[in-house]
Structure formats: C-alpha cells, structure tokens
C-alpha cells in the first residue's frame, strides 16, 4: 500500500517553543489514522504544519509523492488536503450554505452543486438550516458544518482536529458515525482526538504523541490493549 501522506522528521513550533520534533508518520490511501495524546502533546501543531498554517522548521512532508512543506495554505488546499480545524472556525455571520460553498475550491465551480448535494445527504440537519447564520448553530451543528465545509473541496485527504471537542456524547456518536461512513466511501483521513475510544473506533491505526514526539504507534487493537496509552494520559 502506498503512502498518501508521509511526514519525515517534522519539526514545528511557535516562537521559541518547539512543539513537535522528529515526527515521522504516514497515512495510506483509504485509511483513517488517529493522532492521540494529552493536551499540549503537539497534535494540533502537526496538523497545522501539514496544512501550511504553520511553517515547517525541519523535516519533510510529502503528499502523493510531491513535497508539501513550504507551500502556502491556499496551494495545499488546491492540492487536495482540507483541514477541519479545532474550534470549527466557521464564518459566523454567514449562512450555512455560504460557509459550505466557501469550502469549495475555486476551480471546482461546476462540481459545487454535486458536492453540496453530498454534504446535505450526509448531514440532513444542515440542509434544514441552510439559510441560518452559522454563528447561531448549536455546537454539534457547527461541527457538522465544519466537516461539510471540509468535504466541499472534494479532498483526497481530510484532516480533522478534535471533532468531538465540547460536544455531548450523543452528538459525538452521530459525528463519528458519519465520519465512518465517509471513510467507508473511500475518503482518507487523519484525525487528532482527545477522546481516545472514539478515535480508535474510527481509525485503523494510530500514533500516540507525547511532548512533541511519537511515543507509540500501532493498530487499533494494539493501542487499545496498550497500558502506555493510559499511562500517557493519566501519568500513572
């Protein structure tokens, strides 16, 4: 199986702080890969670096064989990677429909309606609230909108940062069931999650980050059984 995305010795940070160092991982076509770890472990930093939202200080990022590090975020979206950021980052005074349409790539105008159709099928609730202002949606609806916006660009890799954050358990279930479906339809994903069981339920493989480095790597089963995971989170 070829790697769709490969990170090699990635180093990135904020100011003097190096948040991730020497991170190497890969995501294969069709997979769902989880990046888990405690708060501050460097998970969000890793995703931001991939999307070009944060400069890469050292290491390489390769997507479909081509180098990604150093490119502007707009170019990376054009290459086929979209990012569903932590905290959704929707456009609050604009409608759900506007938010979704803004997710589409400029080159994809013709396919916009098809993509919209797909999103509405996945999230019927968004269809109902099409004309509502995104800032007035509930937390769960906002997350759906953010994911939908990410899907509008018809990416080949979808990055999700903490999709369960701040959501009630029943909403989390809905979101993850939908993500399962999307992955089942062939969408490659990488997700950062604090909610470990949900993350592992969805993903085939996972990496555990601690203090900016990869502590552990494994399949869903091996990670579930590993005492290191509990240790990393609860410091026992």
């Amino acid at each position, binding site marked *: 199986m070829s790697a769709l995305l490969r990170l090699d010795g990635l180093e990135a940070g904020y100011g003097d702080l190096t948040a991730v160092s020497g991170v190497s991982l890969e995501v294969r076509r069709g997979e769902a890969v989880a990046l888990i770890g405690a708060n501050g472990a460097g998970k969000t930093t890793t995703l931001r670096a991939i*999307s070009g*939202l944060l400069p890469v200080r050292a290491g390489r990022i390769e997507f479909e064989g081509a180098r990604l590090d150093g490119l*502007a*975020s*707009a170019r*990376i*979206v*054009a290459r086929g990677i*979209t*990012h569903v*950021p932590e905290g959704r*980052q*929707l*456009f*609050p*005074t*604009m409608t759900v429909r*506007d938010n979704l*349409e*803004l*997710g589409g*790539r*400029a080159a994809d105008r013709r396919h916009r309606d098809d993509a919209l159709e797909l999103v509405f099928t996945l999230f019927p609730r968004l269809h109902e609230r099409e004309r509502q202002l995104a800032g007035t949606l509930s937390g769960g609806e906002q997350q759906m909108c953010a994911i939908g*916006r990410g899907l509008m*660009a018809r990416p080949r890799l979808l990055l999700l940062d903490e999709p369960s954050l701040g959501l009630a358990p029943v909403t989390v279930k809905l979101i993850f069931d939908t993500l399962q479906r999307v992955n089942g339809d062939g969408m490659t994903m990488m997700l950062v999650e604090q909610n470990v069981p949900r993350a592992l339920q969805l993903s085939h493989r996972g990496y555990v980050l601690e203090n900016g480095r990869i502590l552990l790597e494994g399949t869903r089963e091996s990670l579930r059984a590993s005492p290191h995971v509990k240790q990393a989170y609860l410091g026992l």
Partner: protein
Amino acid sequence: MDLTLVLQGLLSGLLFGGVYSLMAVGLTLIFGVMRVVNFAHGDMMVWGMYLSYLLATRAGIDPYLSFVVCAAALFALGLLVQRGLVDRVIDAPHEMQILLMLGVALVLENLALVAFGPEPTRVRSPLGAATLWLGPVFVDIARLVTFVVAVLLTAALSLFLYRTDLGRTIRAAADNTYGALVVGIDVRRVYAVAFGVGAACVGAAGALVSSILPFQPPTGLSLSVTSFNIVIIGGMGSLLGAFIGGLLVSVAESLGAVFLKPSLKELVSFSLLIVILLFRPAGLFGKRTS
C-alpha cells in the same frame, strides 16, 4: 424657530449624507477586513477631488463622469499602499499601524500642497447653480445628482460584496481570518482588494463633491476625522452602519449649523463621537471588537 430652516437643513444634510456614507463605507470595509484604520482616508479623498479637478480643467471631463477614473486611480493607490506598506505591519501592534497611516496621510496631504498650492479650489459645476423648488425648500441639482450617484455606488458595492464570489470571499476574511486561511483563501490578495476598493470609494466620493465643496489640502484631515466619527457611530466593520451613520452625521451637522453658529457644526459630531466612544465603542450596528 423657523421650520423651513430646519427642513432645509434636514434636506441638505440628507443629500450630502450620500457622500459621507460612501466615504464611510470605504473606511469600514478596510477596517472590517483587516482591522487596520486608514488614517489617510480623508487625504485619499482629497486626491480624488484634485484628480477630478485636473480632469475637468485639463481634459474637460465632467466630474459626474470622471468619478469612474478617480475611483480607478485611487484603487491603484490603495493597492500600492496596502501591498507596499500595510502588509508589512499587519501583525504589528496597532500603534505602529496608526503611525504608519499617519505618515502616509502626511505625505499625501503635503504632496497635494506642493502640487496644487494651499488655496481652496472647486470644480465648476456642469450643472451650474440650478435649483429645484419643493414647496418652501429648495434642492441643489448638483447635490441631488451627487446624492443619487453616491447611493447607487454604495448599492453597487453592496451587490459586489453580497452577490459575487470575490465579494463573499472578502466578507469571509472579515468574518474569520483564520477560517479563511483554513479553507484556502488567499488572504493577502483579499486584503489588497479590500484596501483598493475602500480607496476607490473615496476616490469616487471625492470626485462627486468636487463641484459642491471647496477643498484644499488640509481638508483631508477633517474628512478623515469625520469618517472615523461616522464609522464609530455606525459600528466598525458594519456596512449598513456606515451607510446610516453617514446620513445621520451629515444631518446632525447640518441641523447643528441651523441651530448653532455654522462654525460649531463639527462640535456636534465630535461630542457625539465621544459619547459613543465611551458608552458603546462598537457603535450602533457593530459587534463588540475584542
């Protein structure tokens, strides 16, 4: 109290308000998108006025036609200023941005002074001094046309922002800059366009008033301050607020001139400004800025 005078003041104020609105809309667009306050706004407008003066006297073009050229020229200037200067301080503390734009204002104002001299100028109005009588009050045709064109331009801008893809992209960047980056919007390009459009607004506004209002280089300063007044009263970043605010401030100034000595009219808007600054810096329509 002479009711006719009051009505006249109301009407004149309203008509002139169209230009104030256009001016303020430009400023609020720039602020809404980039959170930068264009201290050179009034001085850019003065250049719009001088440009229309040049076109009228050298090329015989009527300001009610040349405003398009003025808008285009100022659009280019805005683009240049943004790309060359503002872009470099977009992440710097606000005080630095203020000082930068103040520097730009000084340069623009005094270049005008050097180029055109300190004497007040005015473009001979192609509509002459024609007036229209509506009962006890009269309307300057020139002002009426100015009002209509200004409102049409504001409406056109509105259409651009709400009905085109580029316009929507600009609104998105104003709403959530980080979100715009995430979805792959070229935010730097959006900034440049927004600044350019904001400058184009005052370019057009300048041309439109060049035949109604005598102007000289220092006029830029008072126009800048008036723009800030309007935008703060109406709400920073709110287009509707800028539009209504422009009309409101113009009417307030006009009525102020009726009840008080004409030289005190600015007193009204400044006092109003201080009140709004203290009690509601977000303005009438604005959201609370962080």
